[in-house]
């Protein structure tokens, strides 16, 4: 049994929320630079250069990369041997977000679905909790903006759709989104599971560092094929036309019902923000 105090969870989440919003990950910077090299559209190149400049300003001036500091999504893997003391685990996650968004001058962007009254502290938080072997807690804080999220889609396909149908829907989703999700995007694809699991797979797929290969050899060619098709759409950076519509496509897949082929497409904008902490 290893004891972890909620106090250290709160601090870790607070710190991660601020860092995620101000310091764009090295892998994302490398991907943007690579995009800049490969883009042929002059406007597209200019946009990519400005995005890199923006990341530099944010990091140096300590202000958010984007004013949409997003819904706070948290993936947490809690080891079976961990004993959490000092309070309620989920409340600690929320308190960490509350403090991070206040002390980090991050935008409070959560409201009632109908009255649109702002909750004032960027809670509630969307938590995906898993219990795993071991005595550590691993937390990913993933601020997710509304623009790209609004362009994400979920399809319950008929099994007859097959890989061709999946490919069509993924490319269609990106093409229809056009400029709206702030291209260049990273596309998370979840295949299988069930209605809600496919969506979580799609978002989880976004966490893999850019520029790394999918550890599953079955999924690697799928990712390459989807990326190639997406970049033929010509949407380009900020949808103004170009060859770099998406920087990467990441796929996660799991078995599903014999009557179903669930497909979730979670679009991530170029401000792909996530910080991992290990307690």
């Amino acid at each position: 049994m290893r004891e972890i105090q909620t106090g250290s969870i709160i601090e870790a989440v607070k710190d991660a929320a601020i860092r995620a919003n101000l310091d764009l990950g090295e892998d994302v910077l490398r991907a943007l630079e690579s995009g800049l090299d490969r883009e042929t559209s002059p406007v597209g190149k200019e946009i990519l250069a400005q995005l890199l400049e923006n990341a530099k300003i944010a990091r140096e001036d300590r202000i958010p990369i984007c004013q949409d500091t997003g819904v706070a999504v948290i993936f947490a893997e809690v080891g079976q041997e961990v004993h959490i003391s000092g309070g309620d685990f989920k409340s600690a996650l929320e308190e960490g977000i509350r403090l991070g968004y206040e002390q980090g001058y991050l935008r409070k962007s959560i409201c009632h679905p109908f009255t649109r009254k702002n909750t004032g502290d960027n809670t509630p938080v969307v938590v995906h909790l898993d219990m795993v072997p071991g005595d550590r807690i691993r937390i990913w804080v993933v601020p997710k903006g509304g623009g790209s999220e609004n362009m994400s889609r979920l399809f319950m396909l008929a099994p007859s759709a097959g890989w061709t149908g999946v490919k069509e829907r993924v490319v269609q989703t990106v093409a229809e989104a056009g400029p709206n999700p702030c291209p260049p995007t990273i596309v998370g694809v979840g295949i299988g599971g069930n209605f809600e699991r496919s969506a979580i797979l799609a978002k989880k797929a976004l966490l893999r560092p850019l520029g790394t290969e999918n550890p599953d050899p079955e999924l690697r060619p799928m990712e390459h094929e989807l990326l190639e098709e997406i970049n033929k759409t010509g949407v380009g950076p900020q949808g103004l036309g170009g060859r770099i519509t998406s920087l990467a496509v990441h796929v996660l897949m799991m078995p599903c019902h014999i009557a179903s082929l669930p497909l979730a497409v979670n679009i991530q904008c170029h401000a792909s923000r996530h910080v991992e902490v290990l307690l």
Partner: protein
Amino acid sequence: MQTPLSVQDIEPLRAGDPVTISGYVYTARDAAHARLTELIQSGKGLPFPLEGQVIYYVGPSPAPPGRIIGAAGPTTSYRMDPYAPRLIQLGLKGMIGKGRRSQEVKDAMVKYKAVYMAAIGGAGALMAKAVREVQVVAYEDLGPEAVRRLKVENLPLIVVNDTLGNDLYLEGQKKYQIRSA
């Protein structure tokens, strides 16, 4: 260009033109547009003038100490499409945001003469550098969604929709699209 904008200012603009805006712009997003529309429908006065003005679709992050504004990049414009044609009819001359507009909005821009310009989405820190003054003018209760009057200097934009109905998103994508055989 300097706000307020006249028809002479915006008629020569074409989709794809890089422009800068200086002067006052008003910020408003979904909730503020809903309230403004309600005021218009009930014949009441608006909290700020529309004639010749520019609305920037933005909800800035809070200003850290020593700064007047946080990050201030554009939000996605299509959500304001239900409201925009009426505002354009009443004299709004420019809109700043990102993402495509509906046919109704584009038609209103042609009919009443207005332009839609894109700021770089996700470049919140960079866009904020152009802001010189910030003042809440209405709906403070909306927090980030309040109507603010910003004084901007050389806010870098690109014309997406002009007064002739051209659309940079459509033209740009067509130029770089590769159709499979």
